[in-house]
């Protein structure tokens, strides 16, 4: 299976432009959750590791693949989890804010 470099480069170029355009519009407010989200999405590299482990071509490849899956999965789970936690904290100022817990 060779590389179809030109096709791949087209895909890369288009995705990079979409990335630039989409991310330029992300408010600086959300730059930290943006980074944790892209981190989780980037862990899609796990599919490469899954194929490596599933095909069982050599013990060496399987061992490396297992570690790679663990690393990527922890990014997926941790990345989505923390992004969600952060976003839940962003609230706008409500007119009637319940002033509860005060020592």
């Amino acid at each position, binding site marked *: 299976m060779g590389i179809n470099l030109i096709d791949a480069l087209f895909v890369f170029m288009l995705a990079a432009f979409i990335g630039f355009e989409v991310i330029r519009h992300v408010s600086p407010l959300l730059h930290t959750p943006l980074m944790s989200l892209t981190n989780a999405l980037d862990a899609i590299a796990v*599919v490469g590791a899954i194929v490596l482990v599933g095909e069982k071509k050599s013990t060496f490849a399987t061992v490396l693949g297992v570690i790679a899956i663990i690393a990527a999965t922890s990014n997926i789970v941790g990345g989505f989890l*923390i992004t969600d936690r952060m976003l839940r904290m962003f609230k706008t100022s409500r007119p009637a804010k319940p002033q509860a817990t005060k020592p």
Partner: protein
Amino acid sequence: MPTEFAGSQYVIEVIYLVASALFILSLKWMSSPATARHGILAGEVGMVLAIGGTLLRHGIIDWTWIVIALVIGSGIGIPLGMVQMTAVPQRTALSHAFGALCVTLVGTAEFYLGTQNASKLGLSVLSLEVILGGLTFTGSLMAAGKLQEVLPQRPITYKGQNLVNFLLFAVAVVSAVYLVLHPEARQLFPVVVGVSLIIGVLLVIPIGGADMPTVISLLNSYAGLSAAAMGFVLNSKLLIIAGALDGSSGLILSVIMSKAMNRSFTNVLFGAFGQVQASAAAGEEAKPVRSATPEEAAAILAAANKVVIVPGYGMAVAQAQHKVRELYDLLTKKGVDVRFAIHPVAGRMPGHMNVLLAEADIPYDRLIEMEEINGDFPQTDVALIIGANDVTNPAARTDQSSPIFGMPILDVDKAHTVMVIKRGMSPGFAGIDNPLYYLDRTLMLFGDAKQFVGGIVRELGGGH
């Protein structure tokens, strides 16, 4: 390409196509806090589809180890997703390291399986993948160590540092090129990987805390690009797209961060960041400053109409954000207009201050960016600076000899009264004296940020 499973192969490719679209939507929805949580859902669905689709591939003969690894990875991921908000910068650096580790390991395995070794192109991209992955892995680990303070935060520099880094980089590239031209020289592959790992360490040790926002963004970009390179090697458009999105996201953030520090982007790219600014040893004479107690500070704040709070890394270190929220609540109840001025590089990663203040329940429409709020300082009664230093230094506007000259700053010195909560008179991270502290309108509030704000809060609460 096998043809017998062409049908299911098509299904899998369509699943990948949907996942790619969901990833793009996910990022698009991140542009506003109102839609951002849809973005997470889109990303999660895309991820599950992609993993599910991959498991259906005909080449996969055994799921046992895949499932075990997925379970262990989730087990590690959950605590990493539950860390405190103050620990988010080091968590982010660590996840860049994990992402790069995955890419490097897969690249290494692919090399020894020999799937790409016949083609020069495949081997070139594979080399690029492991070089980027390797240096991102160790570089991110170093960054995480510095942020977690298990490694010294101060920049570690030595003579000829750039030359050493350049030579090592040359060794990695030359070995990779030789390997591509002579694939039988397999013993060179560990050299390429090993040297890349060393480069990662050396690139990050000279970097100090204040440069971390740029460095984390840059490592984010490298992690994305290495994943895209992996996509080229594995001929996976999904991976290329995800990697390109991550790479461009990191690149945009690096550019924003480097602009906010008045560094040229090439300066940042080639690792000249964190250069020691040794010039600041001059002003030894003790200039007089005015200081104030929490009681006095509380009285001034209570009398103000417009207050702008400028948070910095010091607030994060002192964990003062919840006390700051109490202060915000009390002042708001008294009818004072309180807003927060956020410098792009305040803290240790892009958006760091926003997350901390949001965690403390401060509404995000009170968090104002630098360009937007700078015009309002002349009409501001009190600018209260909590643990920020260089981003408020007026020398950046006026003093050509200052190492930070030209860096965009928050114009706090234009406010009627400036109050600075600070532990002592020691200069900021960059070792630069801040003339703001010697202005007539400036009051220094010496003490720990959390305790001092707590003191002001007690005073304000007691009076009411």
